[in-house]
Structure formats: structure tokens, C-alpha cells
């Protein structure tokens, strides 16, 4: 699970209103090399929940010097985009779990795949 994906995921346990962002507990994290496409990263940024991204990167210990707030005119800031690229697309949680911040319910991540299936009573 990449942090780009994590940024979109939310807890959908019944009754939960503050299920986002999911907390990450990772036991295995991988950093892959992914081709850097500045336009792509640039386009993704407005669609992200920035603070959730920073928080997630932090949880994984991969935040490095990603700023708490978006820098202005990031579209042309290749250095910044590269940082975002790394955190968004290169860092991957292989094993661990996602935890609903409200209910505490944990969703396992195994072989890079989060299993978000709810039990019948949680739907």
C-alpha cells in the first residue's frame, strides 16, 4: 500500500464519523524506485489531504523533510516534487495494519494489500 492509496482510504465501520485518516502500524516497509513524473505528482497534490500525508509519512518514519504545509508554487519546484514523489509513490507498506482512529478497528495489510472487508455486524 502506497501512501497515495492510504490518503484515499477511510474507515467505513458503521457509525464512525471520524474514520479518516487511518492510522498506520507498519511492520514492514519497502522503498521502491519509481520513475519520477513531475507533472503527475504536481497534478496529484491538489487531490491530496496534505496533513494526512505528512502524518502518515511520519508514522512510517519516512517523512524526512517533507514540510507540514504545502510550499507555494510547488508545480515548478522540482526538489519539492521529488520529495512528494518519494513519499507518495515510493514508500510502500508491505505488512502491518490500518487502524480506525475512532473505533480502533484494525484492517490488516498483508503482502502490500490492505484487507478492508468488514464483518457483517460492522457494516
Amino acid at each position: 500500500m502506497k501512501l497515495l492509496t492510504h490518503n484515499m482510504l477511510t474507515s467505513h465501520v458503521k457509525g464512525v464519523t471520524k474514520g479518516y485518516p487511518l492510522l498506520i502500524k507498519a511492520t514492514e516497509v519497502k522503498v521502491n524506485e519509481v520513475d519520477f513524473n513531475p507533472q503527475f505528482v504536481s497534478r496529484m497534490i491538489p487531490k491530496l489531504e496534505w496533513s494526512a500525508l505528512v502524518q502518515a509519512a511520519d508514522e512510517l518514519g519516512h517523512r524526512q523533510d517533507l514540510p507540514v504545509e504545502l510550499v507555494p508554487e510547488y508545480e515548478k519546484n522540482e526538489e519539492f516534487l521529488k520529495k512528494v514523489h518519494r513519499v507518495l509513490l515510493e514508500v510502500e507498506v508491505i505488512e502491518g495494519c490500518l487502524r480506525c482512529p475512532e473505533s480502533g478497528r484494525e484492517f490488516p495489510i498483508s503482502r502490500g494489500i490492505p484487507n478492508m472487508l468488514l464483518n457483517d455486524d460492522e457494516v
Partner: protein
Amino acid sequence: MDATVENNVNPVRRSKEDKKVIRKQLKASHTLLKHEGISTARQPTKSLVVANGGLGNGVSREELSAALKQMGEVDKLIMHPNKPYAFVTYRSEESARKAHINLNGEKLQCGENSVTLYLSYVDSVTCEEEASVPLPEGLVLVEDFVCSEEEALLLAAIDWSSTNTDVTAQKALKHRRVKHYGFEFRYDNNNVDKDKPLPAGIPQECLPVLERCVKNQHIDIMPDQLTVNQYESGQGIPPHVDTHSAFEDTIMSLSLGAKTVMEFRHPDGRLVAVVLPERSLLVMKGESRFLWTHGITPRKFDMVPACDPQSFGDTTPDLRTSSNLTLSKRGTRTSLTFRKIRHEPCRCAFPSACDSQGAPPAPSPPPPPSLPCCHADAALLEEQYVHRVYDAIASHFSSTRHSPWPRVCHFLSSLPPGSVLADVGCGNGKYLGVNPELSAVGCDRSSALVQICAERGFQAFVSDALSVPLRAASCDACISIAVIHHFSTQERRLAAVQELVRLLKPGGRALIYVWAFEQEYNKQRSKYLKDQNKELPENHNPAENSPEESQEPQGKSSVHNSSHSEDNYRTVDNNQHVTDGKLSVHTNRTAFETKDLLVPWHLKDGKKRVEGDSGEGGKKDKQKEKSKKTSRSKATLDCNPATSPGLDSNMFSDSSLDTIAATHSSKPSPCCDTSQTCSSAVKSESEIIPAPVFHRYYHVFQQGELEQLCAQQAGVTVQSSYHDQGNWCVILEKALNR
């Protein structure tokens, strides 16, 4: 003394006293032999009786013949089962005399024990040419059906991990271990739970073997049930007939890891013991399947023919006579028994043994599932007829879903770069990589399929389409291709659409494809109907045909036609409503008769396999084995462990082995041949090969039905609606002010 005498026999200079003892014992043996009807000769001849050198004493052929051969060229060595002696005929009288001198009164080391041999000349050796015992009718044994590599692969594929409490219990009881795939076989009623398929179907690793079975015409229908039995030395299975009502006629058993002897018993008392060599396939049909019982006596040693064709002179040894038997210690044998579940009552010609026709009545077959009326029932139905099936067929399914549909690709390519896309029900991730400019994430209910996505480098997670854990209005676009038709109630189908809409940002678009009830459109039969002769055509569902094989998809013109015109389509059959609420099984490649149905999926391994040296390797092994046995080596003397009869009282079966172990060599399929045909079998998409069948639930949509469903959703408009190769398709747009 001959300098070449080996160490197992110790000719010792005897004292007078010793010689006296030997003489006495010899006399005693003569008496015994006389009782056996064997008269000894006073003068030397070419033939000797070797008292105490018999299979009945636990002396193996290899051990004895090694000792005898040292004395000269052996013409014949006859060892009757159960007898405490052997007959040896040498080429020359001189050799016989040498043997007499050197071996009479001498100890022969057999593993941990030793026997004292007493030799006497005999005039003639009776070698009854026993009529070869025929195998039970319908029984075929194919040797070397798999090569050693395949054997190893198959054995590794069986997961004996003891999460299964049965397996731990079996271990504790020193019972043979059993594991089922496809369907659970119940030992309480000796039948199968036909309405409860197991989550694990027949493992992929077995498919090449099964294909080979079909190719070699051992079966015409692919099995859908596998029972794995693992027997340690000393374990067996009581004689039984496989329940008629549970399984179809042909039953196949692959023996791995070790050989064994299986006994077949006819009601009239006949017994046939059949050696099942390692890597052999036993095919039971007809009488052998329905009438004869089969079982494996718990033993540590079996009497089996010695496979040593080069050892004895002129004659090609007939494996079916007693002269070529030896003892064989059992190793751990794993059998894979493949069967096809029977859904109709058995109508065999053997009613006395048939539970469908008299003998204890079979439990009545479970009623076919009916359409659910509530969410809980619907979820259960979908669990059984959608989720479990996809998990079982995942990789085969994935291999048949390799080409994205052009019109779906068109939709994806038309999205602005950087769009966030959710593919709900992404399957094997076929569409996730179509447009690399998108940020695409997939989700599917099947973890097996999601796993395939991950392997391909896509982002995907496991979830239900009715509750997607993505934030509302987080997606620029969604697709749901061939998904919603798996929901078994109207409410759930609507909920699925609603979920897609929830995910969309205002102004976002969703593309939905579902199977159409009407397979003919614009007077053109859909590819699904057209491809009647394709390999596994039933698996090429309308929504998932690979377009590269055909001309332009038919649906193109429909975009311009009014999709509401009655003229544009006709149903091939009358439009029947489901009145009784029962689901019927659909016949693939025909028009749909009802809207809710179970569609068969014929499982086949579509994966490409690397045909390595498996064939060659297997062959090499065979040759190595042969040369080992012919070499005159000390090794063979020690290789058989203790064969003392006392050790294992079961060594000679209670069934008194009145017939001898028969080996029936039908034309063995050397694995190197079949491995080559295997590689061509993989691409034999043009052949029709039957396969294990799974049933998937579908609700097929009539024209306009999908649109109606979407219309029930507030805040969306149908942008376009069309028919594409047997699917009804809709592009929705979420209103901007939502």
C-alpha cells in the same frame, strides 16, 4: 575356498562337531521339504533348493540372488510367496556345486537379521507358470504418469498445516492423514456435501496432470473433488467402494512418494492384489469402481514383483508370475484421488452395491438455491456462488481476462491526466494500467484476484463493492465492469450503484458494464453466442471477451441508434420471468432463459508452464534405478532393512495372497512425451477440454434495466447507454451541485 566369496557369507573352517550339526539340520530340512513335495537329489544337478532362503523367511530376492550369483551364472531363481525356501538353477552344474560348497550351512545376512541357508540338489524345479491374474474389469494402471519433478511439485502443493483440527487428530491417532479439496467428503455418511463447496478447489498444481488424463482419454469430464491421503508405513484403508451417489463413474488415483499394494475384492470372493508403483495413475471405472472393493492392508512390507529384467538369462521375466517377487518396505505414500461429484442419482449396472438404487438410500440431493429475499440470504448466496468461486478460480480466471475492452479503454483514456480513478470490482487489475496518467486504485472482493493486481504492481485492496472504504467525492471517475450483475437482489444492485455515485466528485463519471439478457443485438449474435467452438468458450463471458480476436465490437453502432427501439434487438428465446424463484444452471454459449442463473465455469490451468527438463529428468531417474539393480554390489545386501517375518505380523496378508501381485502395464506415458504435449496443451485454446465446474451467480439485465436502476439514484444523469458485446453499458455523470 573361493577367493571371490563376499563378506556376507563367512565360510569358516569347520570342526568335526560343526559338520555333524550341519548334517543333522540338513536332514531335518530334507524332511520338511519332502512335506512340501520337494524331493532332493543325491547327485549334483544344476538346481538347488535353498532352504531358509525364501520370501517366507523374510529373505529378499536381491539379497539371496547376490549371494547366489557369486557362485556362477544363475539361470533361474524362483521364490514362491510365503515359502521358506527358494529354487535356484545355475547355468552349469559346476556353479551349482560351488554354491553348495560355499553356502550350505552358511549364514546369510538380511538387513539386521541373518538366516542359515541349507542347500540341497533337486532334480527339477517346478515353476508353475501361473496364469497371469487379470485386473478387475474397468481397472487401468498407468505407470510413470508423472515424472519425479512433477511428483515433488504435487507433494509440495499439499498443505498439511494443522490449522485443520482433523489433521492433528489424525496424527494423534496414527491414522492416515486426509485432506479434501473442492468438496468435503464426510466420513460419517460416506458422502459429499454437494451444496457446500470448499473454498479451496483442486490445487493448480494438479491441473497439468488432469489435462494429461483427459488427453490420454482416461476421463472425459474433469474432476471437481480431490481427496489426498497420506499413508505412512503400517497405515492403510479398509476395503470399500466409493459411494455411488457421491461420485461419477471414473475415479483416478495418483500414487506419489512410495509404492503400495492395493487389494481389490469381488463379492464372489476373488482377490486381486495390484501393485501401485510410485508416480503411477490408477483409473477405476465400471466394475472396478462400482462393484469391487478396494483397500490397502496396513503393512510395513509388501510383496512385489522384482523389476530386474536383465538379471536372468534368456527369458523376459513375466512380472505376473511368482518367480519374480521380492519384498518391498513401504515408504510414505501420498495418494491424490480425483473424482467428479455426481448430481443425479447413480444408475449403474451394479444395484447391489448402489446406494441410489436400493442399498441404503442416499440422502436426498439438496434443493437448488432460490433467489434470496433479504440481505443476509443474498450475502450467503453471493458468498457461495460468487466469492468462493472467484477465489478458487482466480488465476485461471485472470489468465482469460487479459485484454481490456476497447470501449472501456476509450473511457479511461478520455479522462484528464491526473484523474483519480476507482475500479470497483477490479478483478485481476486489467484496467488499472490502461491509462498511466491516472491515479488508479482497484478494489475487489476476492483477495486472490487482488493479489494478482499487487503482483502486477497496481494499487488495490480487498473490499466489498457495497461498502468501499474511500472517502465520499474522492474520485474523478469510477468503473465497475462486470460486477453489479453478481448481486442477487434489486436492492443490492441499487446499493452498488449508489456506492459508485458516492465516490464520485460532482461532475465525475462512472462507467458500468453488466451482462445482458439479450445476447443478440442488431440481429448480430454476441461473441459469447458465436464462439461455440472455442476452447472453454463458456468462460469467455460477454463482458470479458478479448476483442483482438474479433472484428469491431458490434455495439459501436448502437451509440447512435436509439437504445430504446424495439427493433434493435430480439431475444433468442422468449423472455421468461423467474416465477418459482429457483436458480437454474445455465448452459454456456446459449441464450439466457432466465434472468437469475448459475453460470458454469470450467476450470483449467491457463497459466503458461515452463517445460523444463522434467521429462528428461524423469527418464534419467528410471535408467539410474535400473542400473542399480543389475549391478552386482554389496550394497543390495544391506539395502533392505530387517525382513524377519516376526517383526510384522501383517507382512503376509490375511487374505492369504492366493493370487499374486499383478502389475498391469498398459502403455505407460513416459513423462517426457507428455511433458511435451503438455506445453502444447497449454495453448490448446482451440480444443474443447472439459474441466472442473464451478457455478457463479448472475443476474442478467434486460434492455433499459440498468438505466432504470441508475435513474433511481438522485443527482445523476445517464450520459450514454449502449450494448457492447452482450453487455448493457451506462456512463453516469454526477451532478455538479451535489
